[in-house]
């Protein structure tokens, strides 16, 4: 056993008791990172992390993040550290400022350890489309770890670090968390400043994190939540102590299960486990309410997401032209240079998304595509908020299966209506806090269930998640501690 195999809370105790030092943790993380078989790294901050660790000599008893190394999805700005969002278009780009979330973690003396892979520009759900190729699942390298926060999930599940930052636009933290046996959390939209996050779909994007326990997730939120003048969409809503109610009884809590989503899951192991888990909640005093949602509306989740995300993405990435930063190819004229740079810098699938987005925004198409999608978003959000008016959380399997194998049609648009695979985008549409936690294994592959609460109800969400974690025993999972 190594201290990196432990949760943040446990490592903190070891640091305070001087059983281990930040430098020893960083050195072990470097050793493990060099043995990585998942292709999870864009850049290991070896020198920077060692330098910082050497300065940390006196543990801070009340600061759980002191001396804890962490990984950063490579679409989050880190001053003087290469950041390319796993895309050739950002070749050699080095940000000149830190994202607010990085500054807040540095203020807590957590140690930035590595920049990790993602689906190119965070647009994808397989972990197979970054410029370095596939990032694989640490439990089985022939399987996906999911995306877009693939590297963050892989390094946390490999116990290279005890936590990693990710971003979530559709389910980019919560789905990989299920495939990698982790706690994956996205907060209420605006709860964490997004200053310094490369925008993909700002009306849906949230920063969040992967941890190996619910307590750790709440601990990080305590450190990074709050208003930021650099991000006008960040919220001024009061910041709670998210760890204070974790062990409170959940007696009387109301848990909604959407029948039409659950019914689309055909895996009998997942269905069986779900029923067992509902029983755990009932035994703890919670009430389970099966609720309904129009199946036709559920079928529209994915096209609504696709149109909105492509439309916002094409606008937000218009600045990637190679003039101010990133890949820059010479051309005969200014325009020729832009076309060469953008044609080579973006992969085919990113270009497809941009064209679809641009087409949806054109005046002659907008009514039938973009406007229709954002009206439908409103309808979906109204339906979800109705459910949450009478319930504390919505509870469902995070994915209809364990991590799938890679196939050749990676990230091509499906002709089917994959409700169970796409429903978690509801939390992004409505800006709700949402958390996936591990609940079991099938054929040595982990899987998780998801809880979504009302806006700014993170404290309640963590409380209900922790109650299940305590009973299920699926705590601190990694390939090194697998039960």
């Amino acid at each position: 056993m190594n201290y990196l195999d432990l949760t943040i809370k446990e490592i903190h105790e070891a640091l305070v008791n001087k059983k281990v030092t930040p430098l020893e943790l960083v050195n072990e993380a470097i050793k493990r990172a060099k043995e990585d078989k998942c292709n999870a790294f864009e850049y290991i901050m070896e020198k920077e992390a060692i330098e910082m660790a050497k300065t940390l000599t006196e543990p801070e008893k009340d600061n759980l993040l002191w001396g804890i190394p962490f990984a950063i999805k490579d679409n989050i700005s880190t001053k003087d550290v290469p950041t390319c969002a796993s895309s050739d278009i950002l070749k050699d780009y080095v940000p000149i400022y830190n994202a607010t979330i990085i500054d807040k973690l540095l203020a807590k003396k957590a140690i930035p350890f590595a920049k990790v892979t993602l689906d190119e520009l965070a647009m994808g759900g397989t972990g197979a489309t970054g410029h370095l190729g596939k990032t694989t699942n640490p439990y089985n390298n022939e399987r996906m770890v999911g995306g877009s926060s693939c590297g963050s999930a892989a390094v946390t599940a490999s116990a290279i670090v005890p936590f990693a930052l990710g971003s979530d636009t559709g389910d980019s933290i919560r789905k990989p968390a299920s495939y990698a046996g982790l706690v994956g959390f996205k907060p209420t939209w605006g709860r964490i400043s997004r200053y310094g996050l490369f925008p993909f779909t700002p009306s849906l994007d949230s920063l969040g994190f992967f941890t190996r326990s619910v307590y750790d997730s709440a601990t990080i939120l305590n450190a990074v939540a709050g208003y930021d003048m650099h991000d006008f969409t960040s919220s001024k809503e009061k910041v709670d102590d998210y760890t204070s109610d974790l062990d409170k009884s959940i007696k009387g809590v109301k848990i909604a299960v959407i029948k039409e989503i659950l019914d689309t899951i055909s895996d009998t192991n997942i269905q069986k486990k779900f029923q067992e888990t509902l029983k755990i909640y009932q035994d703890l005093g919670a009430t389970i309410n099966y609720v309904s949602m129009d199946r036709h509306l559920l079928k529209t989740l994915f096209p609504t997401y696709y149109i909105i995300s492509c439309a916002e993405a094409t606008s937000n990435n218009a600045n990637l032209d190679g003039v101010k930063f990133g890949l820059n190819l010479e051309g005969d004229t200014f325009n020729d240079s832009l076309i060469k740079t953008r044609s080579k810098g973006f992969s085919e699938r990113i270009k497809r998304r941009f064209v679809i987005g641009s087409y949806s925004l054109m005046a002659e198409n907008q009514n039938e595509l973009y406007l229709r999608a954002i009206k439908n978003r409103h309808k979906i959000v109204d339906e979800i908020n109705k459910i949450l008016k009478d319930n504390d959380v919505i509870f469902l399997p995070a994915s209809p299966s364990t991590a799938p194998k890679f196939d050749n049609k990676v990230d091509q648009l499906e002709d089917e209506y994959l409700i169970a695979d796409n429903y978690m985008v509801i939390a992004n549409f409505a800006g709700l806090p949402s958390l996936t936690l591990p609940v079991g294994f099938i054929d040595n592959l982990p899987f998780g269930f998801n809880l979504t609460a009302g806006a700014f109800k993170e404290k309640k969400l963590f409380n209900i998640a922790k109650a299940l974690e305590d009973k299920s025993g699926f705590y601190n999972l990694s390939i090194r501690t697998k039960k």
Partner: protein
Amino acid sequence: MKTVDLKRLQIAANRLCFDMSEEEYQTLLNEFKTVVKQMELIAEDKTIDQYEPMVYPFPCDVTILREDEPIKPSSRDEILKNAKNKLAGQIKVKKVNG
């Protein structure tokens, strides 16, 4: 809505300052057909126009005026450090006007 065809997709791509191969346009065209077909599901909902377009999940409280605070801006060198072509403290690009 205009019918989606290869020519229109090429125009859209060129407006975005990139190009794609014939094969890539074909994949895109197929993908478009799927998107349009799936979007028709929303069109079938006769109540959809009763909903206001939703851009953000909740209203953003934008504070227009705030107290002035002195800040240290980034230096010119810092801002230019990622640009490949520079001249006399400016980003150098090809001549746009003749």
